[in-house]
């Protein structure tokens, strides 16, 4: 199982192992990562699973589609490396992925 790192709003590092195929958001929710709200459960309808991806990893992810782009543009403090974690399926290649959870969602 790939291991991913979430840096919670408090600064705490959470290393989580999750099966290939689930989304980064699901890995966070199952393990109660602070700050990942994920109200819509992965339908790309709420922008409450927003994360900042560590720049080294950005190029390894499938780019944002138009729907995700539109959600993020008006989300809380979007940045170049903003992603919705529900739109990132975990693969073996993503072992070591590091993301930071913003202070607010929505």
């Amino acid at each position, binding site marked *: 199982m790939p291991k991913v790192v979430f840096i919670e709003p408090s600064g705490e590092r959470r290393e989580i192992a999750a099966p290939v195929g689930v989304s980064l958001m699901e890995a966070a929710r199952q393990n109660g990562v602070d700050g990942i709200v994920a*109200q819509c459960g992965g339908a790309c309808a709420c922008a409450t699973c927003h994360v900042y991806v560590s720049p080294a990893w950005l190029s390894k992810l499938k780019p944002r589609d138009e729907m995700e782009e539109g959600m993020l543009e008006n989300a809380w403090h979007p940045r170049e490396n903003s992603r919705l974690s529900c739109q990132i399926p975990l693969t073996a290649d993503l072992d070591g992925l590091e993301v930071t959870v913003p202070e607010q969602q929505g």
Partner: protein
Amino acid sequence: MTSTVLIIGGGQAAAQAVDTLRREGFDGRLVLVGDEPHLPYQRPPLSKQFLAGELAADRLPFRHQAFYDGHRVEVRLGKRAARIDRDGRRVVLEDGEEIAYDRLMLSIGARSRELTCPGAELSGVHYLRGIADVAAIREGLKPGARVVVIGGGYIGLETAATARKLGCAVTALEMADRVMNRVVASSVSEYFAHEHRTQGVKIVCNTRVVRLEGARSVERVVCADGSTYEADMLIVGVGAVPNTDLAADAGLPCENGIVVDDRCRTADPAIFAAGDCTNHPSLRFGMRVRLESVDNAFEQGKAAALNMLDRPTVHDRVPWFWSDQFDNKLLIVGLSQGFDQQVLRGDPATRGFSVCYLKGGELIALEAVNHSKDYMAARKMIAERARPAADKLADPQVALKDAV
């Protein structure tokens, strides 16, 4: 000091309340009673990816058992509450067990409204509410099966789309003159009806079902105008009814839901309620509402938890909803009731457009079809009571947030 919190009903609101209670430091006894044999799970995929077989069952629960064990939550599944003894501050379950509480939260949801016409009791007539319903429906969704959907609302149309994707011959019957008539503008209804027809779903509006016929299982649907539709399976999505008996029998005021205030409090200071079962005030919209939505269950579950811990928290969020049908996403924010102006943004033929609702110049709701940017901008604008200019709204070249 609160020592036992008891939650009756194990859906979205319950999952959120449990999470909030422990996150906020509640370290007393926490008991969750749910009538389904499943940990709290997400319902939205039931009519979509889960029905289609694209999402495994173990991805439905918000959290797995380890979370509940780790947070010392006593989870009682497959159990129903029979009555609330308010004087004794305890709930009696149907199996006779009694659970005492200091604070009680009712998150008992809503149930499918059932058909009452002759033949409604035939087998092959399905409702879609829980995992068990999906298991029964999925078995019948074979390529070529004739599936008749009664009701052209969210559940009906999402189920119709999924059945069609699985190769069924699908007919959707709607009593009103257009699909989703209670929840969206006519241009949005027309867009979705057209999408369904293009994909091969037969949509029939202005038709009222009067009778179901069949030897043991349903074979035919008969409508008021005499038209008939042959069916191997029937899926009924004609709305939901809030579960209020438990509260009403205990003497708590109920009126289209368990009546609560903006802090999720019922008339009994020890009893709170959250989610689809509540009738609550919307401060932003100045009226009482009962909402069937993930967002509302989530926010009320959280607010109820904080209020149960004596941390006054008002539930005052702008509601939002979504629906996925074929490759279209409908995103709705706000409540359009009482609007005095409706503005179309963009051309439905481009497959991405929005409908804005204004009341006295204020933006109160927006429906976005495949347009997440407008939807997200509207969420903020509605909360902030923005007053956009109608002519700018109508110009899709002007970003929504710049239309003020």
